[in-house]
């Protein structure tokens, strides 16, 4: 991923409305993002665009991600 795109994603991951989402996304970005395939990275970019509450419901397991492209990333976010 080119530098500017990565930095934009970084800002959108480390500055959220909810602390829980801040922590989960920051940790994922620092620890797992670089080892993802380009398609998986793109899926994370899409997830980072979700509303905070939607993301938190997915990360905390209150809701299940139905999208087969995004679900594996949600599973990784939950484990991380």
């Amino acid at each position: 991923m080119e530098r500017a795109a990565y930095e934009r994603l970084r800002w959108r991951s480390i500055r959220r409305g909810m602390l829980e989402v801040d922590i989960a996304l920051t940790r994922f970005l620092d620890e797992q993002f670089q080892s993802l395939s380009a398609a998986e990275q793109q899926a994370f970019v899409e997830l980072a665009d979700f509303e905070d509450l939607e993301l938190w419901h997915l990360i905390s397991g209150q809701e299940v991600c139905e999208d087969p492209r995004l679900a594996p990333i949600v599973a990784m976010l939950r484990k991380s």
Partner: protein
Amino acid sequence: MNIPVLKFDAVIVGAGGAGLRSAIQLSEAGLKTAVLSKVFPTRSHTVAAQGGVAASLGNSEEDHWRWHMYDTVKGSDWLGDQDAIEFMCKKAVEVVVELEHYGMPFDRTDSGKIYQRPFGGHMSNFGEKPVRRSCAAADRTGHAMLHAMYQRNVKANTQFFVEWMALDLIRDSEGHVVGVTAMEMETGQVVIFHTRATIFATGGAGRIFYSSTNAFINTGDGLGMAARAGIPLEDMEFWQFHPTGVAGAGVLITEGVRGEGGILRNSNKERFMERYAPNAKDLASRDVVSRAMATEIKEGRGCGPNKDYVLLDITHLDPATIMKRLPGIREISIQFAGVDPIKAPIPVVPTCHYQMGGIPTDYHGRVVMPRNGDFNAVVPGLYAAGECACASVHGANRLGTNSLLDLLVFGKSAGDSAVEDIKGSKAHRDLPKDAADYSLSRVAAIDNRKGGSSVAEARLAIQRTMQDHAGVFRFADMLKKGAAQILEVEKQVMNLEIKDKSLVWNTARMEALETENLIEVAKATMISAEARKESRGAHVRDDAVDSPEFPNGRNDKEWLKHTLWHREGNKIEYKPVNLNPLTVESVELKTRSY
């Protein structure tokens, strides 16, 4: 250097609840209005507010704004200004009904009215019994509010500048505020917003503490800008804490865990609450539990390598009970504490939640500061609302659901005042020739410095210093040490270096600029707390304890006054509390007990 100038009638810094509410007033009055935000508006920290908004609608049972006013004054431990509190409680019904008209999906009664539920501290008939006053939209009140108000702004043609960070206030030689400088993250360009009104709605600065429930975004940018522009910060020693946040993360563990039998233990595995509250034990009130935890940590019985947390133990409970009665707690604990609470206790620590103090304003949302013997002289052109402002309605302690009310009422009133002032003035005042120089030099210093200190380390030093010296329960010796230490940390912050020198999308630079705002709030907090030698509301000292002369350690003879901290020389002065409401009798001083 040629800096682009964008001319607006008004600029609002911050797009959370207070910013969006004030923008509606300005745009709907036909004024050219810009809103700057570090993030997309519906991602502001208001989204995390779940509790609801207080208003004496009386939909579920009899209620009155005067009862709400009484509760708020009492909750504030009499440090709130009674003119502002009357104004807010009276206006509550109006702003909630307006929000309903903006499309806010409030919970409803069977007959279609806004459903109201009880919330701590809200009572009927001047403190007699709990009343249902909170209006909510399920557990997503803040989220729904942001969406309703954002849509309203889009309709009114408010111009949003998303992923922009305001840098500094611009004041002319007569002290008028004539705009702000800001940086567009995507380009790294510094721009001047030349305005007739500037409204700060930048939220709180809860990230000054190591353990905080606040999102990372709450770095007190408006407070930093105000302090650097010579405006004092009011009552910054008052911060609300919650007893059980996950240590190191800040995520809240609900008090229901102790209700279901959770036990707090120190490093000796002792159930220490038996010593502090022999009857109620772990179910004692929030402040008692927080103080006990802080005392255990201070006396060396904390857990972990730094001995800086205690343990919340539910391993003795039946796993089926945990799963049934405390849904989500296992998940939170695994995700954020790294422990399965069925097998091991959860590390917890008193955690900062809400900032009562802020930029001093009157109840019209105009920023005020002492000048020529007048404590409340208006700073022309500058307004503030929401958690960054201090009207002061929360005084020494905020009631639940009054924060969303604060941002609606004072967001609206700051907007109205700005409209009135703009319509009463002829044109934009001239920009000073050096309008952007200060901001440019700050940015250049960060960009060019070599061999400086790391942003992450400096931020951590602020947070550790604040948590250890000015936490939920305060000790005279620690405050004194903390005041010296935070000035040392300031030297580190004034010497920040970033490795990434890129112009565009440089998040390291943003974090460095945020840290320069955090340090201003941290100094204000530590120095104000050290100076206030009583206990009141959320500011509790072990050398100002309950006595017949000073119930709960509160000393009205000497300390019934607002703190004003000035950045210049870290000078402290005090101004009187306004005990006179606008139209009704004063709520007379008495001991605060529930």
